[in-house]
């Protein structure tokens, strides 16, 4: 019985609580006027403040992809344009979104869970409810919407910076001339690729912020509980981000 409880009952309970929380949250969309300032604040935290680290990680990933592609593939028999054909689709299709997702899971997911978890254990959420405010709407909707709005922006920045980084290292490192890089990128470019990346980034933004809100909102215990919620938020966000990544690839590509 304990095994059934661990493997079935508890996960089912968690999914139910998660779905109910989101249902309650989005049932308050009519009150959005009162949460407008909160949404903008969260967009700054989730989006603008994450931009430097996302851009840095993307630039290095693009650069490393170029160097590795040159190391593994370039030979007298293979044109150097292959580097552009590898770097650009991999940034647009996979790295731009997934890399940003991992960074946001650590940076934003952990922050959301720690913030809400601390509010829960210090009775600040009870205080909101006791005032007559819908705490779910006030705390969760702005964070999730900020994730959904800002993740695509970060994805675009990550893809652009990553491709630029890869191109710069390729050109200035002497791995591939600029014209070859661009020609390679154009050769295999599919118009659906950036659309797919944007869809992924929307889904990832929702996944990371909603899971982190869920973990933080239902934190139990004191400082230890907040620590546990924070870790779980970051880890679960990464896990479900990978699951969503595979699901979208299988269904949309």
């Amino acid at each position, binding site marked *: 019985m304990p095994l059934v409880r661990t493997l079935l009952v508890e996960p089912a309970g968690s999914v139910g609580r998660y779905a109910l929380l989101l249902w309650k949250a989005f049932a308050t969309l009519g009150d959005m006027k*009162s949460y407008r300032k909160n949404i903008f604040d969260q967009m700054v935290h989730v989006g603008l403040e994450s931009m430097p680290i996302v851009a840095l990680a993307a630039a290095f990933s693009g650069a490393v992809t170029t160097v590795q592609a040159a190391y593994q593939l370039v030979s007298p028999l293979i044109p150097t344009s292959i580097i552009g054909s590898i770097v650009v689709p991999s940034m647009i299709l996979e790295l731009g979104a997934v890399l940003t997702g991992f960074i946001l899971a650590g940076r934003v997911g952990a922050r959301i869970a720690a913030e809400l978890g*601390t*509010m829960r254990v*210090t*009775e*600040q959420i*009870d*205080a909101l*409810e*006791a*005032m*007559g*405010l*819908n705490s779910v709407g006030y705390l969760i909707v702005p964070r999730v919407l900020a994730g959904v709005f800002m993740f695509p922006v970060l994805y675009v920045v990550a893809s652009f910076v990553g491709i630029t980084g890869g191109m710069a290292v390729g050109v200035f490192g002497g791995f591939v001339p600029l014209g070859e890089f661009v020609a390679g990128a154009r050769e295999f470019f599919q118009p659906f690729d950036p659309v797919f990346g944007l869809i992924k980034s929307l889904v990832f933004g929702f996944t990371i912020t909603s899971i982190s809100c869920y973990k933080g909102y239902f934190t139990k215990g004191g400082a230890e509980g907040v620590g546990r919620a924070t870790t779980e938020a970051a880890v679960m966000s990464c896990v479900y981000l990978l699951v969503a990544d595979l699901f979208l690839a299988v269904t949309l590509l």
Partner: protein
Amino acid sequence: MIKVDNISKSFGDKQVLFNVSLEIREGETTAVIGRSGSGKSVLMKHIIGLLIPDEGRVFVDGVNIDDISYAELRKVRQQFGVLFQGGALFDSMSAFENVAFPLRTFTSKSDSEIAYEVHQCLTMVELPDVGKKMPSELSGGMQKRVALARAIALRPRYILYDEPTSGLDPETSNTIDDLIKSLAEQLNVTSIVITHDMHSVLSIADRAAFIYNGRMHWVGTIDELHASTDKTLCDFVKANEYQIGPRS
């Protein structure tokens, strides 16, 4: 009037409240007393619908709050001001913003009107100059007073105090007690004070309700408390180093 009618509550296998009933009379200050873990705070959370009883009902002005929609419950809650045990100030906001928060959220007052109201509330709790400070810059006693200012910002009909003097030195505790008394008089509110501090009870309450092991063991006025010969109640009061006897 608030009426708690025969409520029971369990968390998992642990039953915390057993058929608890209580009537809070309009305009009075009622102290709910009992040992730590006896279920006092759980009872308080039922009164504002933060917890739903497994059995029994809670009435606020004749309305069963477990039987109304969430939107209606939120309206009922707006009649309450709650002082939580740790103050529960929003730590991302200054003291001013904390007190202004309910005014901004639930009223259409202008910024200058809100600033005036906040100043009034902070003055009532004798902290007119701390508006710019963040909660982390305030002492425990000051945090509770700012939280009290926030609780009275919307001029509630009922104020709930959850352990208002716990963790405070005797002098600060006396200040909080004096505030509770003066707010009850100035604002003409009905107050419910959850506490195990008999000094507070004797100085601020009109009536006391004693919860023992999750059951309502005794309810009466403070004079009746002084005259009580109930052994469990006397033991609890004596443990607070106060003998039951006529008030001086």
